[in-house]
């Protein structure tokens, strides 16, 4: 099933969308990044360092990367600091004046129970920023392993798993997440594992496609001819050449994980009260918007938006630099 989707354009800005187009069309990805040039061994390490330095320099020149990183850094500081740096206790401090708009005492106002919205907003970063990256990491590890095995060995196992992956992909992630979390009960661990499991098929498909095109290249053939074991060929020969693909996939997955975790909390199937989680805060108070108490839900909404946008700006910059 090969369709006419040539490699990403030079600017590489739309590269991941293109890749998704290629994948949606069932295409095998070619030309993501050339294989590491074979050369005398001592040269290679230096060359790689050089390439890394070059990439870092290019990254720092992209405004999207700078802005995205700064936003993420802010939320990471909030997540690490937690209630040590919030102006009030985000969970256990109840002001008698509840549902008040922002004032000198409470910059962003108070919620239904009289808790400080700003403190809850800052502390709420923790849930998202712990759960989403862990889930993304797990899915990338599992998906890479599966994709490597399937793409390298092919055969009927590959055929069967590919079919199953296709089915899993035909069920919307949020819907499936809602079902699973409702079945298993919601805890942080369940949410992490659910999101990881749901994202694994997507990563698997991307990595498998990349492995398929790598496996045809001469360096793989020569490694096999010199009698290397399959594990070595996959882990030491193919895997390093997949690094750009996997890195991009990882950053993109973090963005989608934030998206999914927030949606699950909003649907009551994620992190539970009294946690200051953002999705949960919107779920508890979105109906108050119509009676004018907007600050309780709009600030968490903006927070979610800022994290996903920042993650995507960073992912996009990394992708563009990797493709360049």
């Amino acid at each position: 099933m090969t369709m006419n989707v040539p490699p990403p354009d030079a600017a590489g800005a739309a590269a991941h969308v293109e890749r998704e187009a290629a994948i949606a069309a069932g295409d095998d990805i070619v030309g993501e990044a050339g294989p590491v040039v074979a050369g005398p061994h001592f040269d290679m390490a230096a060359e790689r360092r050089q390439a890394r330095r070059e990439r870092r320099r290019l990254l720092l020149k992209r405004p999207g990367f700078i802005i995205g990183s700064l936003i993420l850094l802010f939320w990471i500081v909030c997540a690490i600091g937690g209630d040590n740096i919030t102006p009030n206790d985000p969970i256990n401090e109840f002001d008698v004046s509840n549902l008040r708009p922002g004032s000198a005492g409470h910059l962003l106002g108070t919620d239904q129970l009289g808790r400080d919205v700003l403190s809850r907003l800052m502390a709420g970063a923790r849930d998202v920023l712990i759960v989403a990256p862990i889930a993304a990491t797990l899915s990338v590890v599992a998906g890479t392993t599966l994709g490597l095995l399937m793409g390298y060995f092919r055969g009927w196992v590959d055929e069967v798993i590919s079919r199953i992956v296709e089915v899993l992909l035909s069920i919307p992630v949020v819907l499936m997440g809602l079902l699973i979390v409702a079945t298993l009960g919601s805890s942080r661990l369940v949410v992490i594992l659910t999101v990881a499991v749901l994202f694994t098929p997507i990563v698997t498909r991307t990595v498998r496609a990349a492995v398929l095109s790598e496996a045809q290249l001469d360096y793989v053939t020569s490694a096999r001819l010199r009698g290397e074991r399959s594990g070595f060929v996959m882990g030491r020969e193919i895997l390093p050449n997949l690094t750009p693909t996997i890195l991009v996939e990882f950053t993109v997955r973090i963005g989608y994980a934030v998206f999914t975790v927030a949606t699950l909390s909003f649907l009551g199937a994620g992190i539970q009260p009294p946690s200051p989680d953002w999705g949960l805060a919107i779920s508890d108070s979105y109906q108050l918007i119509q009676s004018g108490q907007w600050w309780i839900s709009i600030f968490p909404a903006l927070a979610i938006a800022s994290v996903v946008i920042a993650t995507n700006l960073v992912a996009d910059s990394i992708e563009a630099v990797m493709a360049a």
Partner: protein
Amino acid sequence: MTRYIVRRLALSVVTLFLLVSAVFLITNVFPSDPGRTIAGPFAPQATVDQINETLGTNDPKLDQYGRLLKSVVTFDYGDSYQLRQPVTDLLRPALGRSAKLVVFALVLTVPLAIVAGMYAARRRNSFADRAIVTLGVASSSIPEFVSGVILQYLIAVQLGWFEPLALAPRGSNLITQLRYLTLPALALVVVYFGYIARMTRAGTINALDADYTRTAVMKGLPTGRVMRRHVMRNALQPTVSVIGIQVGYLFSGIIGLERIFNYPGLGLLIFNAVRAKDFPLLSAAVIVVGIIYMLCTLIADLVIAWMNPRARLEAVR
């Protein structure tokens, strides 16, 4: 072409079978007692047992699995535990309402996104191009309930231009219904515009750079003809494929949005069914969503095959 359609349909049937099995697995992991759910916490155990007997929830799992498979064909999923009505009667209006919202959102998004994407592609690296690409990244990554809640506050509550809730009063005409649907549809535009625009841009750039386009220009065809006959036909393939996938997601993936705007479509139906552990309703809704998704990707594939004979040939393999 016929051969291609047959192969593609057979694949869909297999996928559907696997989906139904997955749904059965998940709904049977729930520790549940439908008889108790229906009769309430104070009913005598004998009543509960009898209801379970009538519903067939005490039957061997294999029989229940067989029944679920059969109901996919007969479209009879029994009664909802919670609302005691045939599931199909609940599904049909919800499906209709979802379809209205999805079609409205698509009509707003697709032409706009395609025009923007092609414009950006023809003026690569210009300010307009950068703006479209950057906006696309930013907006398409926001969960739609987030864009929904922000729009609801800004446009409905602050400006008062549209209704904050999406369901028009009973018996109102289409125009009124669409007015009520505008905000949730706009929330979807925010999410999907960037995605489709970027896909179109990428496809168009590839087609513009292709040899056949250069040939067409060099042999002196007018620009309009080159764009229509040579560029668009090839450029829009990824776009079509993505729209197919997105429509499938739109029918169910917007549970959050339907909740914000209190719009009783398929998403809200599924949300309530999950909360009430109403398995007949839940299984039926998930299966319907799966079928819609498969139909949409199928149609998208057929359109692509129609646009590109090469895909037709190679996809059969």
